[in-house]
């Protein structure tokens, strides 16, 4: 009965507010997953192996095997693994821009759902015991009105019934946006930006750190460093997109 009512309600909602592609605005039928049109879905470059077993960067040679990439051999990242849903280009790039800069929170929720449903190479979200989004500085948060990483993380946490904590990790320094910086500048810029506010919440936890975009990895590396320092058991990283 409840199921029937739900069906009728969702049918009505579909009539009143028909589904449209969240990215390009084209109307779509019921069958499409994730509220994206087939065209836009096909323009998402999902990340598959072979990839770097540590930072998760995909390799061009699709017949090869996964191994450590050059960067990770040079300086092994502090996190166990870092994985991403897709490449930061085309549809995902547009979607993240709409979500972050145009405030389309509803789109962020759908992206979070996509992240939760994807199968990642050697990362099982169920193994984690706590989800932590990469925090924004209070000033940035107040300017934007929401934390994009939190919205993604909340959907993953709901899907796997995992605890989520958005207060433990804090961004204590209002750093410059990483967007327009080079690799070495990024590392310097982010150094010491994070703090753990509630040590007891993360102690001994297997943490899944969630963010929107992995570019050089300097942000998540710094977060991981702080978390491990405060005795998190281990940290894995999951991002929506990867540059």
């Amino acid at each position, binding site marked *: 009965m409840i199921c029937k009512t739900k069906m009728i309600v969702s049918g009505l909602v579909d009539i*009143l507010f028909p*589904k449209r*592609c969240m990215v390009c605005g084209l109307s779509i039928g019921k069958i499409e997953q994730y509220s994206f049109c087939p065209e836009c879905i096909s323009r998402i470059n999902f990340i598959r192996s072979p990839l770097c077993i540590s930072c998760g960067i995909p390799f061009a040679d699709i017949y090869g095997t996964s191994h450590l990439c050059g960067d990770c051999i040079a300086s092994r990242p502090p996190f166990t693994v870092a994985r991403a849903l897709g490449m930061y280009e085309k549809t995902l790039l547009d979607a993240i821009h709409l979500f972050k800069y*145009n405030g389309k929170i509803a*789109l962020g929720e759908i992206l979070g759902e996509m992240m939760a449903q994807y199968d990642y190479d050697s990362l099982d979200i169920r193994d984690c015991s706590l989800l932590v989004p990469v925090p924004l500085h209070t000033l940035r948060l107040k300017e934007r009105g929401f934390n994009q990483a939190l919205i993604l993380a909340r959907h993953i946490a709901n899907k796997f019934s995992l605890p989520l904590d958005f*207060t433990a990790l804090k961004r204590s320094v209002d750093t410059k946006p990483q967007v327009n910086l080079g690799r070495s500048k990024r590392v310097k810029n982010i150094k010491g930006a994070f703090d753990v506010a509630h040590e007891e919440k993360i102690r001994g936890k297997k943490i899944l750190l969630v963010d929107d975009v992995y570019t050089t990895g300097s942000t998540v590396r710094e977060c991981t460093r702080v978390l491990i320092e405060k005795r998190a058991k281990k940290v894995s990283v999951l991002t929506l997109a990867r540059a």
Partner: protein
Amino acid sequence: MQQPIIPLLIFLISGLLTGYLIEIPGFIAILLSLASLTGLLFSLVKKRKVYIFSFIILSLFFFGILNINFYLHPKPAGKNISQFTDKEKVTIEGVICKNPEVSPHKIDLVVATKRIINGGIYIPTDEKILLSVRIKDRSFKCGDYIRAKVLLRVPHNFNNPGGFDYKRYLLFRGIRLRGSVNNPTHIVVIRENTGNILKSSLEGYRTKLRKIILEHSSSPESKILQALILGEKREIPGEIRENFNRTGISHVLAISGLHIGIIAFLSFIIIRWIMKTSGYLLLRFNIIKVSALYSIIPIMSYALIAGYSISTIRATIMILCFLIAILIGRERDLLNTLAFAAFLILAFSPVSLFDVSFQLSFIAVAAILIITPALNSLLPKWKMNEISRTMKIVIRIVLFIFVSFSAAIGTAPLIAFYFNRISTMTLLSNLLIIPIIGFIVLPVGLFAAAVLPLSAYLAGILIKISSFFICISNYIIDYLSHFSFSSFTVTNPSILEVFLYYAFIFLSARLIHSRRAKFSIFLAVIALFYVGIFAYINIKAINPGKIQVTFIDVGQGSSTLVRFPGGKNMLIDGGGFYGESFDVGRYVVAPYLWHERIKRVDLIVLTHPHQDHLAGLVFILKNFAVNEVWSNGKESESESYKEFTRVIAERGIPHRIVSSDTPEKIIGGATVRIIHPPKAGPEFDTNNNSVVMKIGYNNIGILLPADIEEPAEKFLMVNGADMKSAILLAPHHGAYTAVTPSFLGMVHPEFIVSSCGKDNFFGYPRQELLNICGKMGVEILRTDENGAVSFTIDGTDIRYSCYVPRESVRE
């Protein structure tokens, strides 16, 4: 399906229109609806999608027919009340069921009558009546139980092509009778607050608010504030309203989706701003949904304070639909949402479809949703995170101009159709005034309403602030409206033209958006089609080989339009009422002329300076291009006459005094001859001194003797004037002292037209005249029964048409 509500809406609307145009017997409509509902049920069981959809739209279509028929053909009025109409004054008792509409000269009350008292007997009744109270210093509230002594009348229309259907307007509000009270002892409030508690406490609050507005602000600012906050716009002085019209900003004065939308927008921003003060709230909740949810409170409060009029409720429904879309978090298809709002409104209040404000609001929003994105696609694409703050502001302003432009484009044909005026200032004035009135005056005024229970002092200050800004905006509007090119009059577009216009706009928007070549072909076809229609209409206006004489229904009075072969025209008198504020020129004669696509009157003739011939001409002289005025030169002390001469002098229109010495004038092959009054001769009274004209075309005469009576008739006969005419306008509306049998014998008409008001006080045309006409075999046509009567002389053929068909008069 892209926008599933749109086909549903289209079928509902076509049902409403069908039901409006064709009366379908109730039981057939019910039977058909039941049949389609059964079909729907079966197809639902069988789960056949195609059938489900077809039966849904079919059911909606029949539902539309039923729904509108219910309003158009209500169950017959209870015998109780109809037996008292149009006879003598009766005493009624009832409850004022809508907020009184206060205008400068009268208060209109909608009274739900409970009983009639006649000869000491109470007769229960249930009928809505429009009561116009013309008594100074009396006020009424919704919920008052009143007793009034009143002459009940069936509302009457001026039956002219293109005229306003007042009867239908009232019928759609559930009103079938009207009456007026002029004597202070004839109306008394027996009990107050008999409505429900919510309504009366709200009314109490509104009264307080009104008081504080009037205390802290003076007219006209206070009146505009009243319109914006309380929804009472009737008291706005005429010249202010005129300025708003001239600058195309009058939509600001009627609470619409714009106002509710601005309030929703501002509440959204403010709530978001409050939330942004707390990082925890931002992290814990979805800021957009929370802001949207809480914006509902101020919106609903505004709707309540603004007097829950139908147009306010409509605007609220529209905005709520948009907010729900945000709450559900779907990628919003705003056109579908708009269609849903329209669907809801039309399902519950089908008569809204015929409401000007409904049409304007929805067309405006639809135009914004369709045209603005097309215009936007012309701009380069910006990434919002990469542009500077000033650039963001510039983009906002450009967007605002696009929105105003789209709304103006979308509503232009309707504005031309209903108001016959297009403003050239509309973009500029919207750009200047909406920020002031929408984003300062309105929110500050509403804030005053919100703090009133806490501090009357603070509320007073806020009222002062907002009236200061109204003052500024009035100053701007006043400045903008005083250019001669600020606005221009337009004649009524035809339905086909309006349709083509919208098709053109829609396809252009699609073309710009998608840049597909096939749309340009469509556009070219439409443009060609339009040129064809335009040419046809203009050739028709030249009226080759035909002369057309129309006796306009102006109630008790007279106004005649002559359209000569070749396109020239002449207006003889303009109707008018004694001692009434109703402007026949503005509301009856001008709309008829505009409907006939006349903007220029080549010749205006004032036969004699009596109110019922003169008053309506003033508006025509002010608002039409007039080449020449003729009159007999007799003056009058009346206000209308002073205004008449003032406007003629001001606009520099040649004014010619005519008499029977005036040489015959030939216009387009027709002769116009003045046969009365003589230049020098016996002294006549005003009526008998009227200008009498005879128009001749192909040896067929049309005699227009205005208000002459027996003395002038005799004078003309004695002097052997050539009066033989096929068409005769009954002298003095067919009065007792006019149209002597010998005069009739002399004119020997085939048709007599009596221009008179329904059930007029004087009893025109007199029965005796009707009898004589019957005996002589002369056909008599009356503007009170037949509406506008129009004769066309084509060659030697005389044809006539009446606005109200003769068959329907006979019943």
